[in-house]
Every structure is written in structure tokens, then in C-alpha cells.
């Protein structure tokens, strides 16, 4: 067994963990991030991808609202290649109380959110997808954010600052001396290899799984797993985020993200045992379609691509069974102060929007413990890829007349696209035709971004996220991965796993064109290709 020393070990490869590693690394610490699965596999990758303006929280939770709008403005600057500045609408429907609009707008203004009441007719002109029956509309600075890209960019930057990463590695226990955590014992879930890592501070950033990690360390955090289900529609129906202007409820946000749009969400309390395998029920699907069609009527006749669910890492505050009245506030626990356990802190609660702030708070605690006196720079240093704000300019600088695939690459990679800018013609061949992902982009991800499976590759490049759900690209990408990793046998089972993972999200909404596609995929892989 090997042992390695670091200044800080971060547990959890979601956005909070990745952000914390980046912050720590930028402050000069020797960092290690450990993730049981892949990046962004928990709540990070299983939400709307909404760049909240904070408006949704303004009435009930002013603190969260203020955090959101501050971080919203920061992310636009530091993570521009992950963000689409679409703006958002809060619409009032005939069955909603229009009086709420006033309360809402006032609360927004108090929180520093630029909320502007507009003519409902203007709202329909701005986004023709909006339910034309609306009686009121407020425009807010919402947007969409690609959580996979954001997470990957944070991790990449940490690596550029000498951070180390262990993916697919499980924490089996803590190295503990008396009341001090000295490090962790791990097992690689792919190779079975066990290792020990030591650091004076360990940060628990495991989202809902932080509950389990804390109990391994011998402390208890009262977490409250709340499942939220969402549906992905197969193209962008709306151009702006559409919210309901009422007290937050089920399925009242429709977010246009990349080439799709996403309706969500629900909220159901689930036991911890189910967190690893959440399924979307037919009732949830019905509810999402019904409520979603009120925001944008065309959803009732738009092809659905998949259904998925995530688990919010809420920290219980009261006994509300819906989980909605718990503050989305950030919880940063120094277990030395709270439980007398030294060298261990937990950062949880919060949300995708406030990950950077959470990371800053956690890193501040880490630095205090290590007596490091460095200020946080993450609020103004752009992430790799976001050094320039306009991907259009980036693309034009590299290619005189960029092809659609080159444009798509620029929109995903931002300035990092220059890495694949001068590749040869073979690298320009498309792997994924739905999302226009080229060989060059796939190979770049394989080389630089800790890819060990097709599913990992999907999170980093969007292969298989389009309409065909990996029908054609999975096999091509498997070929590339097999070549790069020299592991054909593993790729064979990887391919089967990938198709299984895609099917998991398809069958809950398996009708119409989605079922046609599924049948076709079955036919190709079973009968033609002989998988």
C-alpha cells in the first residue's frame, strides 16, 4: 500500500469539490480530489443547469437570492464558455394570483436582482414558446449553465495548479489518531487497488453522500435527501428560461440548455439507500409534462429525449416532508468546533449557483487551519476556456469560415478549442453527428480530462447526449477509446454499460419517436453489430 501526503484532501467530484480543489490549488496548497464515480455524477449533473438570478428565492429566502445574483454575475465573467446568457421570464398564468408579481418584484429588487415587469405581449414576442394565456411577465437575469463543463473546467484548472485527482476511487475509511483525521484509505473501484493519502485537512464535499462520509468519520450531519425528477426535451423549445411567478412548486422551471430544454422538477423525500439509484416514476413524468405544458404549451407535443432524477443535498432544518421549505443556504461545518473532530470539515447545502462561494468558504476554513494567508482569486480569474467571452470570436480567429462542427466545438470548449484548431483532416471527422463532436475533441478529452469510460466521455464532450442517444457515436467513440487506452475487452463492456445508461433515461418516456429510436438502437447493436 502506498501513502502520499497532501495539504488538503477533497472528497467528492461534484461542482463543490471541484471548485474547492481549484480554490485551494490556486492558493498554493497541494491538493487531492477523490471521487467514487466520475465528475458531476451526483446532484451537480442532475439538475436543470439553471443559472439562477436568485429571483426564485427572493420572496422566501433573501439570503440565497442575494448569493445567487452575486454569483450569477461572477460566473458570467469567469465561466463564460459554460454559460448561456438567455435571461429568464417569470410568468403569471390565469390560475395564479397576479398580486404575487408585486411582492416578487419588490423582493427581487431588495436582493439586488434586476427584475423588470414587462407587457405579457412582449414576453410572447421575446420567447414565442411562452404560454400566450399569460397575464403577467417579469424579466430577470436568469440563464443556463452546463454543469458538466463547469465542473470539468474547475478540475482542469486545479490540475493546472498541480492538483491531483483520483476518480472511480472510494473512501473506505479514515486514518485517524485520537480526535484528529490524518487522511483517508481508498480503494479504486476499477482496479481494486488500495491506497492511503494523508493531509492535515480533509474536506467532505460529497453532497448527499456526505452523510455517509461524515458517519465514517464518526460525526453526524442531519441530511435530508430530496429527489427531483426532470425531463429533457429533444430540442430548444424556448429561448429564455421560463418560470412560474408564484410560490415555488413542482415543474415550474423550463431551461433552454445547449441543444435541448429541460423541465423540472419534483421534490420527494427518499431514503438514503435509494440515493445511488433514483428512478423517475410514471407519476412524475405525467406531472412534469402536465405542468411543463402550462409554461410552454408546445411541450405537450414535443419529443422527449430522456427522464432523469437527482438528489438534493439538503440539510434538515425542520420536519417539512416536501423538502421545499428548507433553506438552500450554504452549510459549512468545521467539525473541530462542532464535534471536536480535528482536520475535517464539511461543505454542503447550497446549490450549483453558489458552488464558487461554497468553495471559497471551505477554502477559507482550510487555509485558517493550515495558517495559510492567501486571498481567494476565483471570483475574477477566468476558468480555462473562459478567457474570452465570445465563442464566435474565438472560432473566427482560428478558422476563417468555421464549419458547423468547429462552431459547436468552440461553443463547448471556449478558448480551449485552440487545442484542436490545427488538427489534421482525420481529427475533423465527426464522432457524434447529433451534437457535432469531432475526433479531435474526443481525443482531447481522453488525453486531458481523466476519461475512463464512454459515460465519462459523454459528460465532457456531449457525445451521446443528442437525439440518437449514442446509437451511432457510442461505437465510434468506443473504437477511439479502445485505441487510446489499448483496452478493447473493457470497451466492449463499457459500450454495453453506456447503452444501458442511455436506456435507463429513455424507457420512462418510451413512446413515439423515442421508442422508434430505441427499437432502432436495439436492432443495430443486437442484430447487426452483435454486441
Amino acid at each position: 500500500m502506498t501513502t502520499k501526503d497532501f495539504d488538503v484532501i477533497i472528497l467528492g467530484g461534484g461542482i463543490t469539490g471541484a471548485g474547492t480543489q481549484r480554490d485551494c490549488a490556486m492558493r498554493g496548497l497541494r491538493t487531492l480530489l477523490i471521487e467514487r464515480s466520475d465528475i458531476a455524477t451526483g446532484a451537480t449533473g442532475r439538475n436543470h443547469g439553471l443559472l439562477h438570478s436568485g429571483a426564485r428565492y427572493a420572496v422566501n429566502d433573501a439570503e440565497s437570492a442575494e448569493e445567487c445574483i452575486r454569483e450569477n454575475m461572477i460566473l458570467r465573467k469567469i465561466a463564460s464558455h459554460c454559460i448561456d446568457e438567455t435571461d429568464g421570464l417569470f410568468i403569471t398564468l390565469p390560475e395564479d394570483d397576479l398580486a404575487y408579481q408585486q411582492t416578487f418584484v419588490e423582493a427581487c429588487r431588495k436582493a439586488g436582482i434586476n427584475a423588470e415587469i414587462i407587457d405579457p405581449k412582449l414576453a410572447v414576442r421575446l420567447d414565442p414558446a411562452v404560454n400566450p394565456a399569460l397575464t403577467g411577465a417579469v424579466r430577470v437575469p436568469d440563464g443556463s449553465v452546463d454543469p458538466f463543463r463547469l465542473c470539468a473546467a474547475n478540475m482542469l484548472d486545479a490540475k493546472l495548479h498541480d492538483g491531483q485527482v483520483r476518480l472511480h476511487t472510494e473512501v473506505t475509511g479514515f486514518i485517524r489518531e485520537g480526535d484528529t483525521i490524518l487522511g483517508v484509505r481508498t480503494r479504486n473501484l476499477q482496479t481494486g487497488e488500495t491506497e492511503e493519502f494523508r493531509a492535515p485537512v480533509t474536506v467532505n464535499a460529497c453532497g448527499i453522500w456526505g452523510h455517509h462520509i461524515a458517519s465514517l468519520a464518526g460525526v453526524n450531519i442531519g441530511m435530508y435527501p430530496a429527489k427531483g425528477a426532470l425531463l429533457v426535451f429533444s430540442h430548444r423549445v424556448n429561448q429564455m428560461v421560463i418560470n412560474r411567478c408564484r410560490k415555488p412548486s413542482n415543474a415550474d422551471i423550463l431551461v433552454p440548455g445547449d441543444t435541448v430544454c429541460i423541465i423540472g422538477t419534483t421534490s420527494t423525500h427518499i431514503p438514503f439507500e435509494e440515493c445511488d439509484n433514483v428512478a423517475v416514476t410514471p407519476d412524475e413524468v405525467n406531472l412534469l409534462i402536465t405542468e411543463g405544458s402550462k409554461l410552454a404549451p408546445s411541450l405537450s407535443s414535443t419529443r422527449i429525449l430522456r427522464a432523469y432524477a437527482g438528489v438534493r443535498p439538503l440539510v434538515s432544518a425542520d420536519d417539512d416532508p416536501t423538502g421545499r421549505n428548507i433553506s438552500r443556504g450554504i452549510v459549512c461545518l468545521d467539525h473541530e468546533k462542532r464535534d471536536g473532530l480535528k482536520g475535517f470539515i464539511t461543505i454542503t447545502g447550497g446549490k450549483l449557483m453558489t458552488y464558487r462561494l461554497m468553495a471559497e468558504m471551505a477554502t477559507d476554513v482550510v487555509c485558517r487551519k493550515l495558517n495559510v494567508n492567501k486571498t481567494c482569486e476565483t471570483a475574477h480569474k477566468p476558468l480555462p476556456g473562459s478567457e474570452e467571452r465570445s465563442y464566435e470570436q474565438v472560432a473566427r480567429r482560428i478558422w476563417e469560415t468555421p464549419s458547423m462542427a468547429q462552431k459547436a466545438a468552440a461553443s463547448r470548449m471556449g478558448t480551449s478549442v485552440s487545442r484542436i484548431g490545427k488538427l489534421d483532416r482525420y481529427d475533423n471527422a465527426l464522432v457524434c453527428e447529433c451534437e457535432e463532436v469531432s475526433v479531435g475533441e474526443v481525443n482531447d478529452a481522453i488525453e486531458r480530462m481523466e476519461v475512463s469510460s464512454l459515460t465519462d466521455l459523454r459528460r465532457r464532450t456531449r457525445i451521446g447526449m443528442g437525439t440518437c442517444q449514442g446509437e451511432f457515436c457510442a461505437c465510434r467513440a468506443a473504437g477511439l477509446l479502445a485505441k487510446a487506452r489499448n483496452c478493447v475487452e473493457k470497451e466492449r463492456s463499457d459500450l454495453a454499460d453506456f447503452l444501458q445508461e442511455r436506456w435507463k433515461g429513455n424507457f420512462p418516456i418510451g413512446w413515439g419517436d423515442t421508442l422508434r429510436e430505441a427499437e432502432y438502437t436495439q436492432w443495430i447493436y443486437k442484430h447487426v453489430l452483435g454486441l
Partner: protein
Amino acid sequence: MKLQEYTESRHNFEECMKCTVCTAYCPVLQVNPLYPGPKQAGPDGERLRLKDPWFFNYALKYCMNCKRCEVACPSGVRVADLIQSARIRYDHTKPKLRDRILASTDLMGKLTRPVAPVVNGVTGLKIAKSAMDAMLKIDHRRTFPKYSGRSFEAWLRSHEKEQAAFPKQVAYFHGCYVNYNHPDLGKDLVKVLNALGVGVQLLDHEKCCGIAMITNGMSEQATRHAVHNIAVLKKAVVDKGLTVVTTSSSCTLTLREEYPNLLGVDNSAVHDSLLMATRYIYERLEAGAKFRFRTDFHKKIAYHVPCHMERLGWSIFSERLLRMIPGVEFTLLDSACCGIAGTYGFKKENYEASQAVGEPLFEQIRSVNPDIVACDCETCKWQIEMSTGYSVINPISILAQALAE
């Protein structure tokens, strides 16, 4: 409707199963590597364009709008409509002078008619061809359609009274080609219909259907023409209860399909009453009308299905009529694009591609070695005649030749 009872999307792009069958049948893709192909340009590109119009790719201009992708698609995706409507929505570059000239088929006809012999002489001259090639990028190797001295409209107007005497009446959307270049086809139609006891009327001033404007980035002009033509057609169909017949498959497709699908001009009031003349004639014969054919008409005829005829799905009517003529040895050519695609092949930058697309068809014609190539499209006619030397005749004119006097 119940939620999700059915799903729909613009030109059915969400029905695309990504099977890539369309790319296997795209004639342009086979010869022009700059064209991204129907799948990428159509349903794949549509999702990206909905994300950001910046994803619009100017290489979509290489699409000939032959619609073979739509005919091949197992899922009913209107691939070519997706491509053309993307061009209409996102390509705001001003059409070049050359493209405007090529697209303005009726204006050109009007301007040249009084001086037709001169124009025909000039466009046939080597020096004029070189000049057009250099200045306008109209390929010098092209043969130009000849202009006629007297328009078809003028001719038919002079026969108005005798046509009105027939017990049954149809209106005829003759199109620019019959009016300005080849009035004989119109006269042949009148002869054939008269033989069935049907008189032919003009519409109350039709305009060019606008097909060339659509493909040349002049959709606003095309829409104006569409609105005008639909109004004119309504007068014939709704007010007078007439069927409107046509002799050009491309005009027909434009009036019936492109108006609503690409230009958003509602044609539902006239759609079902707009028929290719071959279909109208076939239906008259089915209803009991009879032709008297010559007994000395012996021809080997190879029938080429124009792309737009294939898309209309009406080639069976032309085919059946030709097979009906005694003494005809009939061959149905494999359905393949001739490469001209309206004004596409006239452009210097497309000449090579255009000829390469058509080569398999030309080869087939040469091997059949017919007396006549039959075809319902005027631009296919120019292309095939120029490229093979075989004479290409509209089925209506063949019928007219085969009728007993």
C-alpha cells in the same frame, strides 16, 4: 388532444432517427465535398440553429433542393424543406446580380421577347458566353434556352373563343418556360385536352411560381409571387370551380408544397385542384374519355422522372399515359438526378458538380439509346439535351404527336 398523444416539429426534424439514409441518396454529396450533406444541413443542423442562429452554415447553398433526401427518408422528415427554410431564415446575404438574373425567369422573358431572335443569337455566341462567364459567373459551357418571339399567353388569347366552346374547361398554369421559351408545349397541351373535349383557359395573369427565387435567396419576392398566384388560382378554383393543370413538375411542386411549407403562404383552398396535366388526363381517361391514336407512331421512349416529379409521386400518371400509346417501346429510367436543379447548374461554381451528378443518368440514356427521352421538367430537358444530344420531350407533347388528326 391528450398530452404527448402525438409529437410534431418543424418539417418533422424530430422524427429523424439519424439513420443517414438521406446522405446515401444525396446527389450533391457524391460530387461536392464542400456540402455538409442533408442530414447535417437538415435535422442535425436544425437543433444547433435553434440554439444559436450563428450555427447556420453558408455551405447550405450547395443544396440543389432536389428533394431526393425527402423521398428516401424512412421517417418522413422534410429534409430539403429544413435546409431551404434555414436559408430563408438565416441567410441574409444579398443575392448576386447573376442570381437575380437567373431567378427572374418571367422578367427575363418579358424583356427579351420583343427581341428574341437577337437574344437567342447573342446567348448562343461564344463571345457572349465568355462575357457572361467572366462578368456574371454563368458557366460558358451552358446552352441557353431559346426565347420565343410570341408568348403562349398571346397565342391562347387569340384562341379564347374556340376554347370557350368546349363543354368542359380547365385553367392552365403554363409557367415562364411555356410562355417565353417554348409555347409549343402549351399548344400541345391545348391540342391533347381539346381531343378529350376540354377547353383551356388562362389564369387571370399568373406570375412566375418563384422556385428560382427561393433557391437564390429571394424569398421575399417569391412570397409576393406566391400571394399573387394563390389569389389568381382562387379565382379559377373557388370562383369558377375549375381544375388548374400544369406541365412543369417543378412549378407544380412549388405551388402545392413550397408555398405553404417554405413561404408560409396558405394554399389549402386550391391545393387539391392543382394537378399535373398528365394526372388530369389520366383521370379523364379513367372516367371514360378516349384518345384516338395514330397507328404509325413507333418510338422508343425512355422516361426520366424529374426530382420534383419523384417528390410529387406522380410519375405513374406520365408513365401510364406513355405506355398507353400504341407503338411505344417504353423504358423507365432509374430515378436519378440530372444535376441541373433549375438555376443551380447554370452557375459557374456548380458546373462541374452539376455534370458529375447527372453522369449516371446520361450513361443510362446512352445505353438505352431511345428515340426520345420523355420528361416533365424543362430544366432537366436542357441539361439532358446539352449533355447527351438526345432530344427530350414533355409527355404531353409526345401525346400530341401520337394523336390521330
